[in-house]
């Protein structure tokens, strides 16, 4: 973690809690529930599997070393329903990715959002509802 290009952030993620609190393969208690981390990185591999998928992203640290971060999401059918296909995030894809990090400090996180370098956004738990008009 030290020196990573972490751009940050800590704020409430109730939308994501609602999206991920369903009775899936396992609980999401291994992830922080109120913290998010955001990195710029390059997709290393997309493990499109049941019951959970993992998007592995190489993140270059300030010292030049590379950490492979894994971002966990639901399985293939849920991802496809939410507009995420394997070919959308192929190895080599540059992106900015946000997740809720693991509590034990390992480089894993619950996949919250990714923005590809062409600006396309991906929400594995479903796109958040638009803000209400004032």
């Amino acid at each position, binding site marked *: 973690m030290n020196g990573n290009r972490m751009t940050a952030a800590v704020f409430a993620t109730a939308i994501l809690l609602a999206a991920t609190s369903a009775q899936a393969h396992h609980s999401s208690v291994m992830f922080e529930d109120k913290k998010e981390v955001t990195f710029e990185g390059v997709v290393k591999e997309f493990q499109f599997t049941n019951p959970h998928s993992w998007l592995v992203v190489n993140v270059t640290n300030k010292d030049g070393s590379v950490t492979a971060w894994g971002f966990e999401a639901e399985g293939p*059918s849920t991802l496809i*329903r939410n507009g995420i296909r394997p070919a959308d995030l192929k190895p080599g894809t540059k992106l900015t990715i946000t997740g809720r990090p693991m509590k034990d400090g390992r480089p*894993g996180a619950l996949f919250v959002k990714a923005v590809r370098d062409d600006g396309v956004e991906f929400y594995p738990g479903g796109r958040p509802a638009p*803000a209400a008009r004032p």
Partner: protein
Amino acid sequence: MTSFKKFAVPMVLLIVSASVFAQNARQSPDEFRRMLDRGIKYRTAAELYQALKTEAHGGKQSPPFDQLPDWSGLWTAAGGNTFFDAGPGGIAPKLRPAAAAAVKKGEELAAKGIEYDENLSQCGPPGFPRWLVIPFLREFIVRPEETWLTSETVNNVRRIYTDGRSHPAPEERYPLYYGDSIGFWDGPKLVIHTNQLMTRSMGRQQPDQSDQMETVEIWQKVRAGVMEADVWIYDPALYSEPWYMKRIYNQVPNPEKSVRVQYWNCTENPNNEVYKTPDGSTNYKDLTFSNKDNAKEPKR
């Protein structure tokens, strides 16, 4: 961004509250009470099932295809009542003391962020009646002699025999994850009786159901894209009187036919392997993508 943060939490609470209200609003407290009482009126699930069959003038067994409803498409759980939470009007299930204590303990652990799933974390099947509340895709395959109520989670299939057969004889029965289900058609409604269930956890941090549990369900498509199941659960080891819950299932929009149910191999990805931590919670085992130099491997 600042304004987003300012309004995000109340908005989300509003959305979640509205969603819960919408689910419960589909059934008034009076209607919920009437359905609950319908189950309480009978001592056993078998008696309720027989009463429903009598009301349906015996119901239909193996009706021809043209008399069966169209339940095709992909479906997913869209809420409804649960096993241990109060229903509309705050009407709560009457639990045996041990079950009430287990519910309370589960809530306390969950509040501390301690959760473990005795079934799904080990790639076991959700089983029934937990099957009613799990997420992900479902398909309902309707044939005259048999209906399959399926879910993509670990490829489970509930087979509902509607050809007039009875349950296995008592001396042939043994505990089953999904029980043994027989049914009849009452017009477009499928009425199901299930017994032969297994003693096991009903969900994450929830009490165990017993092998005395039996259920009655009435399934029907209430309008295009919406299926509902009325469910009565009889388990004298768990509830001091039968519990009732309505479950709702929505059709999944799939205009391009791109969403399909595929084989679910729970163990295909080693990164999904978890273990029970010393405090009773859940954590991942080794993560294959993790650089050992950076990883802080947990003690197990």
